[in-house]
C-alpha cells in the first residue's frame, strides 16, 4: 500500500473534515501500479498555513480552495509552480469562473472540482489525479534511469576506445625512444600487438555503428523474403578461416532446403555472424558448431550450439549487457568488443518481436536459440 499525503486547504472546517472523512477509508488500485494507494489527510485553514505544510511535508496532492482569508489559492499555486514542487493540485471552488480556471491551469493545476460535490464526485476526482501523479512520477523515473544508462554506456565506451589508442601510442613511444635498442626485430612483438589492437578497434567501431543504427532507427531497412539457409551458409563460409585455426567443424542443418522469412538480409547476417563467431571463439580445439534452422508453423527457429567452454548461470545473466564480456581464465585470450550479443538481442527483440534464449553448461558448451515469429 502506498500512502499519499493529501493537503486540504479550505477555510470552512466542515468541508475539511468532510473531505478527510471521505478519504479515510478510500483506496485506489490500478492494474498497472504495483500496489494500491491510500490517503493521509492534512488540513489547513489558510494559504499561509498551507505553505508551511508544503515546505515541510512531502505533500503529494493538494485540494485547494481559491477563496481564502489571506493569500488566495492561485497564489499558493504560483508558489508551488515557482519552487517546482512535486505535488499535484486540484482546485475546489464554488467561484469557478473561466478567468480563474485559465489562471489556475496556467499555473499547473490539474483540474477543478466545483463545490458542493458528492463523496463519489470527490472520489473519482481523487482517482484521476492519483493516476496522473503515478504516471508522471513513473515517467520521470524512467527518464532518469535512461539518462543514467546512457551515461554509463558512454563512460565505458570512451574507456574501450581509449585503451587501444593508449596501448598503440605506448608502443610507438617505446620505439621512438629506441627503448630496447636499434634492432627492429626486437620490436616485432610490439608491432604485432599494435596491429592486433588496431584490428580489434576496427571491429569495435563497426559493432558500434551497427548498434547506433539500430538504436537511432535511422538505418534504411530493406525487408524482403530472404532465405535463412542461404544466409547461414554464407556466414559459415565467412567463419571457416577462423574455425580452421582451432580445427573446429561447423555443421548446418535445416528442416527444408530453403527457409524464407520477411527480414532484412544484412540484419540476419549480423545475427548469424555474431552467434557463429561466438560459437567458434568460445569453443575448444577440435570442437564442433551445430547451426540449425527450423521452419515451424508460427515461427522460424535458429539454433547455434557449440561444444565449448560454456558459462555459469551468473555469466548468462550478464551476457546481453553492453560491453559485458565473460572474464575468466579460459576467456582471457579471446578478443571481443562485448557488443555482439547486445546487438543481436536488440535486433531480434525490437525489429522482429522475437526472442533469444541461452542454455549452457560449464565445460560442455552453450546453445543459443532465436525464435522469430512469422509476422
Amino acid at each position, binding site marked *: 500500500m502506498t500512502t499519499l499525503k493529501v493537503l486540504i486547504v479550505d477555510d470552512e472546517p466542515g468541508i475539511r473534515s468532510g473531505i478527510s472523512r471521505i478519504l479515510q477509508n478510500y483506496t485506489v488500485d490500478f492494474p498497472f501500479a504495483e500496489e494500491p494507494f491510500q490517503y493521509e489527510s492534512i488540513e489547513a485553514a489558510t494559504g499561509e498555513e498551507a505553505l508551511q505544510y508544503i515546505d515541510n511535508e512531502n505533500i503529494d496532492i493538494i485540494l485547494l480552495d481559491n477563496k481564502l482569508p489571506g493569500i488566495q489559492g492561485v497564489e499558493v499555486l504560483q508558489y508551488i509552480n515557482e519552487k517546482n514542487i512535486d505535488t499535484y493540485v486540484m482546485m475546489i471552488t464554488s467561484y469557478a469562473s473561466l478567468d480563474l480556471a485559465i489562471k489556475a491551469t496556467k499555473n499547473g493545476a490539474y483540474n477543478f472540482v466545483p463545490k458542493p460535490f458528492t463523496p463519489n464526485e470527490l472520489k473519482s476526482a481523487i482517482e484521476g489525479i492519483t493516476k496522473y501523479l503515478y504516471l508522471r512520477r513513473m515517467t520521470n523515473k524512467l527518464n532518469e534511469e535512461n539518462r543514467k544508462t546512457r*551515461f554509463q554506456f*558512454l*563512460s*565505458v565506451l*570512451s*574507456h574501450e576506445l*581509449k*585503451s587501444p*589508442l*593508449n*596501448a598503440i*601510442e*605506448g*608502443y610507438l*613511444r*617505446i620505439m621512438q*625512444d629506441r*627503448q630496447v635498442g636499434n634492432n627492429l626485430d626486437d620490436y616485432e612483438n610490439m608491432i604485432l*600487438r599494435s596491429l592486433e*589492437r588496431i584490428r580489434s578497434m576496427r571491429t569495435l567501431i563497426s559493432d558500434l555503428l551497427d548498434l547506433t543504427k539500430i538504436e537511432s532507427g535511422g538505418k534504411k531497412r530493406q525487408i524482403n523474403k530472404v532465405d535463412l539457409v542461404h544466409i547461414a551458409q554464407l556466414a559459415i563460409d565467412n567463419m571457416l578461416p577462423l574455425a580452421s585455426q582451432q580445427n573446429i567443424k561447423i555443421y548446418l542443418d535445416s528442416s527444408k532446403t530453403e527457409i524464407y522469412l520477411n527480414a532484412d538480409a544484412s540484419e540476419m547476417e549480423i545475427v548469424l555472424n555474431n552467434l557463429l563467431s561466438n560459437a567458434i571463439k568460445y569453443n575448444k580445439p577440435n570442437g564442433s558448431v551445430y547451426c540449425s534452422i527450423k521452419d515451424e508453423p508460427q515461427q522460424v527457429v535458429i539454433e547455434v550450439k557449440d561444444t565449448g567452454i560454456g558459462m555459469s548461470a551468473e555469466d548468462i545473466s550478464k551476457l546481453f549487457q553492453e560491453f559485458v564480456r565473460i*572474464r575468466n581464465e579460459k576467456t*582471457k585470450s579471446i578478443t571481443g568488443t562485448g557488443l555482439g550479443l547486445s546487438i543481436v538481442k536488440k535486433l531480434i527483440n525490437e525489429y522482429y518481436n522475437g526472442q533469444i534464449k541461452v542454455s549452457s553448461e560449464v565445460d560442455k558448451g552453450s546453445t543459443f536459440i532465436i525464435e522469430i515469429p512469422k509476422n
Partner: protein
Amino acid sequence: MKNMNRKKVLIVDDDIDSLNQLSMYMQKMGFEVVSADSEKEGEQLINQHKPDLAIFDLMMDNKDSGFILSYKFKKKYPDVPVIIATAVSSETGILFELNSEEEKKWIKADLYLEKSIRYDQLKEHIQKLLNL
C-alpha cells in the same frame, strides 16, 4: 638510479599491453615488478607481497576494480603509496563520480595518472611519491 634498486612495485592491469609497457618502464627505473592482469589475481598478490609502490588500473573485472584494490591495499599497507592509472581522463569527469567528500575519503589512492603519460613524467611522479 641505483638507490632505487630492489624496490618492489605491484602492477595490476587487465590490458596486457598497458601492463607490459608499464612493467617495462618500471623495470627500467630499477624496480622489481610483480604483476597481475585481473582484480582477483591482484588481490592474491596483495596478500603475498608487500611492495614499495602499487599501480592499479581502474576498470578491470569491475568498473571500479582499481578503487576496490586500493581500498584493500591501503587497509593492509597504509603507508605504501598507490597510483590509480586510467585510460579515461579524470577531468572529463565522465568516469568516476568523485563528487562528494565521502567518496574521496573512501578512494584511497595517492595519485591518479592518465595512461597516456610519458615515461619521464611517470618517473618524476614516482620519485616524488617515494621521496627519492
